């Protein structure tokens, strides 16, 4: 069950008209490509995608799931009306609870709950093996974080076997540095039973982290951690989005899109190969098909179908699909939204803004007045 209904409000205009999982990333991907590819690469063939916020682009992008080798394996699960009215998804647990019908029709032994708005490469099958080996009721993927940052996360305290003894939500004095990644494997029957109980509880906020996990711990259930030490980024803010994009660059990037054994799949349009004009320069960039570079691209992500005009400079920046930087414009330390236009001669962003990246949303025109 892939939770993809989030707005991602700290991405501001980047999620003004699309849900966070549908935000473009890495020149040709969308964030949801990463969990979906993980599913396909982990041998999961049925994925329910729970959508709510601005779902149109997300729905059309998902199609029937063919793009991720999930032929007819994707079920799009938005909130729906019932005889008694129906309601929006009120929390992560509520979203899944409203779709128990989907889970029970598929009748799996295990259900994995995934977040649709994090970037990572992870073999869920390996996590499931750990879950089975521990004979666990619930396994939570965790990632070690620096101790000084630990109090910003939901932390899990575990014994030497990995069994969870305590859950701390953003504690001032952390007892552990293992942060929950929001990825859970449940035994199906337990999940369904607990979600029904939780749905009936008027006090509950219907959140996995806030309600379901603490209750299961209280009940003395077998909760285990699965320690993940690979690449994981939340890209929840403009700064983290920009910085994670830059991590794709360089000869030995910390996040390598070219890793062969675990391909990230996507549902892209077909464009001709990237074009480089006679006076183009390109240095330390990732460039998608269909883009045309007449000017300079330096240390940047140039997404599919975008254009850098003559004499224009794009440096330390991310152009999302279809972005156009017109002749003589400069884009520095910035993010330009999908199909947005930076008019001729405009300077968008600056060299010395530090982590205060300039950005604009999708389908906007930035003229000289701005």
């Amino acid at each position: 069950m892939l939770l993809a209904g989030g707005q991602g409000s700290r991405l501001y205009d980047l999620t003004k008209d699309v849900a966070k999982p549908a935000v473009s990333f890495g020149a040709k991907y969308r964030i949801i490509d990463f969990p979906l590819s993980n599913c396909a690469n982990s041998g999961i063939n049925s994925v329910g995608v729970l959508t709510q916020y601005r779902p149109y682009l997300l729905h059309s992008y998902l199609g029937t799931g063919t793009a991720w080798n999930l032929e007819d394996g994707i079920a799009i699960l938005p909130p729906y009306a019932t005889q008694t009215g129906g309601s929006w998804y009120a929390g992560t647990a509520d979203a899944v609870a409203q779709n128990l019908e989907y889970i029970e029709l598929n009748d799996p032994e295990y259900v994995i709950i995934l977040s649709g708005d994090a970037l990572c490469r992870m073999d869920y099958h390996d996590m499931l093996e750990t879950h089975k080996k521990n004979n666990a009721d619930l396994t939570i993927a965790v990632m070690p974080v620096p101790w000084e940052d630990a109090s910003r996360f939901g932390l899990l305290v575990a014994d030497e076997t990995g069994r969870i003894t305590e859950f701390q939500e953003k504690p001032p004095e952390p007892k552990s540095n293992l942060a929950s990644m929001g990825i859970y494997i449940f035994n199906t029957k337990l999940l369904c039973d607990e979600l029904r109980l939780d749905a009936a509880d008027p006090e509950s906020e219907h959140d996995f982290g806030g309600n379901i996990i603490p209750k299961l711990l209280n009940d003395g259930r077998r909760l285990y951690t699965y320690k993940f030490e690979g690449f994981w980024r939340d890209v929840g803010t403009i700064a983290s989005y920009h910085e994670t994009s830059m991590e794709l660059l360089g000869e030995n990037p910390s996040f390598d899109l070219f890793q062969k054994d675990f391909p990230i799949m996507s549902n892209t349009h077909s464009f001709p190969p990237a074009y480089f004009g006679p006076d183009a320069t390109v240095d330390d960039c990732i460039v998608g098909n269909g883009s045309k570079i007449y000017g300079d691209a330096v240390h940047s992500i140039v997404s599919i179908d975008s254009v850098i005009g003559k004499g224009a400079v794009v440096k330390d920046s991310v152009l999302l699909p279809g972005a156009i930087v017109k002749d003589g414009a400069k884009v520095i330390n910035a993010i330009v939204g999908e199909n947005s236009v930076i008019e001729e001669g405009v300077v968008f962003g600056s060299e010395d803004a530090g982590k205060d990246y300039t950005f604009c949303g999708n389908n906007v025109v930035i003229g000289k007045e701005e």
Partner: protein
Amino acid sequence: MPKAIGLITANYSTKFPSPLTDSRPAASLPFLGRYRLVDFALSNMVNCGIRTVGMVMPYNYRSLIDHVGSGREWELTRKTGGLFILPGSAFGTSRTGSRFLLRDLIHNKVFLERDSADLVVLSTANWVYSMDYNKLFEAHLASGADITVLTQAAKDKDVDVAGFEVVDGRVKGIKHGVVFGDTAFLDCFVMGREKLLEILDWFAATDYLDLFEALAGEYERVNVQTFDYEGYAAPVFNKDTYFKANMDMLDTKITHELFSERPVRTKNHDNQPGKYQPGCKVANSRVSGSSVIYGTVTNSVLGRGVTVEKGAVVNNAIIMQGCTIKSGAVIENAIIDRNNLVPEGTELRGAPNAILVKEKGQA
């Protein structure tokens, strides 16, 4: 749009004096890095609304089947209609110049008989252009011709392009080879489906001929008219026109015309975007996805997954999918076929008027 079906004849040979077509039919020659020639014929048909396409296969069909698959990329995986793979005759490719071999059409009459469409458009896969066939259909229906052939005034001498003798707007004969200004045949024509079936019956005894050769004595009886296509169209019948057509794609006016209004669909490999490492130089070139460039690439077309190492230089060249150009190697005026590993320090140089071809490699 009148109801039409399409038929692509891919069972003919070309006189490529190079190893490029030793291992593959002309229809599956890679073009502009990520396409194959057949993509243009297929996309033109699909883009005008056709959803039933037959494809007469050459004997060495492996790469062509691998590419078109079930036709999904062209929306041809369907309950009604879709892509029909049709057998070509074994000796079809032995006759150069014949692109609409009667035997291949007669053997596959069932494809024509089972559909109820009014029109059938036939095409080879040797021309690069993007056109709305509805214009051809409209002209065909308006003129009342039996056959309307797609033509264009020849821009160059080309011994491999067929041309028509046209008198007062009607075709009176076909010839092989054109010079500047001739009425060049774009190897595409439209006609009534039933009329085609009727004509095929006339020629059962001479099925070793090309349709237009067989019609030689019949141009009074069969009304064949031309439709002049004004846009960009490039023939690809030999090494030189293959190289030239690829290099034409460095002109963004041409690529705009080919790719922006109607998509040219191709098998989607969904590979990574291209990676341009610190210190690389790329100018006046087209580079496909998942290529990694450390060195210098100028005036060239690169396929998918090509690596150009540090200090390597590629100029005025076509590098096909999966090649690695090792450090210090120099490639100029050349076509490097798929999966070649060009070793360190090697120089592969042709001349602008004598393009060097390196056959498929094993890398």
